[in-house]
């Protein structure tokens, strides 16, 4: 694994405004083709529910949270978001290959170590996972897909996610920059 201290801002990156627009078009196509929005945390949730049910079926069935996603006629992994995330992985891999950036590396600022970056990213990810379940979805599921269907909760979630990040960025900046 190599580490690069500075994110390579070569021109192989797509313009962020263009990618944002394209992402919106992907969302539109998703609604049109599947009748559902995009999501990410839902797939992870399915994986967690499946793992918990595999380790202790009685615990999963007894829990208010897990039992909601378990039924006899449908396996929790048989969920459209699981397949969508597999597609995201495949697509991202292709995109990385096209841009010539397929490499295992940790990107971080020169002032912190890879270890700090990984640990902090892990903690941040766990917090975001908990938050996404309290908020019934993550950035893509609640904010993006929610706003696209003009759901008020979507707008509130987006403001809360990015506003919260903006407010706390100052205090945690040393872990990143």
């Amino acid at each position, binding site marked *: 694994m190599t580490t690069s201290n500075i994110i390579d801002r070569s021109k192989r990156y797509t313009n962020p405004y263009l990618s944002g627009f394209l992402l919106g078009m992907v969302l539109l196509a998703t609604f049109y083709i599947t009748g559902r929005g995009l999501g990410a945390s839902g797939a992870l949730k399915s994986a967690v529910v499946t793992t918990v049910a595999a380790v202790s079926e009685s615990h999963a069935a007894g829990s208010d949270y897990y039992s909601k996603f378990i039924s006899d006629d449908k396996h929790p992994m048989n969920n459209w978001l699981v397949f969508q995330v597999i597609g995201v992985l495949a697509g991202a*891999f292709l995109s990385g290959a*096209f841009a010539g950036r*397929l490499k295992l590396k940790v990107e971080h600022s020169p002032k912190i170590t890879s270890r700090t970056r990984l640990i902090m990213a892990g903690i941040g990810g766990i917090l975001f996972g908990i938050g996404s379940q309290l908020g019934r979805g993550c950035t893509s599921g609640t904010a993006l897909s929610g706003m696209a269907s003009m759901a008020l909760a979507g707008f509130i979630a987006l403001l809360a996610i990015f506003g919260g990040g903006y407010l706390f960025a100052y205090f945690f900046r040393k872990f990143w920059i």
Partner: protein
Amino acid sequence: MKEELIISGRMNPGIDPFLHIWHWHIPVYLFLGGLAAGILFFAALYTIMGREKEMPTAVKWATFVVPIALVLGLMALFFDLKHQLFFWRLYTTVRIESPMSWGAWVLMFITPLSMLWAASYIKEAIPDWEWKYKFMDQIMALVDKYRKALAWAMLALAVILGIYTGILLSAFNARPLWNTSLLGLLFLVSGMSTGAAVIMWMSKDHRERKIMSTIDLVLIIVELFFIIHLFMGFMASTAVQIEAAELFLGGEFTVSFWVFVVILGLVFPAILEIMELRGYKIPVAVPALLILFGGLVFRIIMVEAGQLTRYLY
């Protein structure tokens, strides 16, 4: 004493309403058998063509995988047997009309041959290697002397083994999904593709990798054609065949088959191989692993779904 007389297959709960006698053992065995056939085919082919120097992984190094794959596969097959201690009875007869007889005999010849083949290259892989017994050196000298003849035998046996993994299923004429003559060829091509993937993955030589990658790409295209042809055949056939095909066209196996076998196991690795041939940097393990994964899932699904299809109502 409680006596039970079974006078019809319909009274056997393992057969009716659905056949459910084969679990993970058989698809794993078919996968490993196909993989071994694929690797041995290329080893024999490039030996016959006299290209050992250009294709060292295909001819030499990948064949070390074969005895391990065959032994593991045969162990899986053995665990599946109901009367395990009677397996030797397969070797008391030769039945040209029985796929199991073909399989038993071809494995009887190809397993020791693959061991000899790999053993004959062990000194090149590990320079300090010394055989414990003198007669091993003599056997290896014989293998070297008759290498071309052995390669021809291995080529034929590998093709038979690859086809056998398919006809083992297609001989079940009461299971419409299996009972198609395409299955032997489809399994052969798929096995050769997984074998090519292993060689490609193990190879350190850029040129050899490129050759195997191109071959694999052709095999994937042929396999995709066979899959389409398989369903065309089913859909143009009788109601039971149409029903068998419908398991994959909207039924229970639609998602697992098209997503994991066709898209992730064939189309996606094919795209990656095309990109690699056009000069993009792709870690070779990714397409290779996907092809192996697709090959295994393909066999699991075919064995599972085939048992659900039937003529009786």
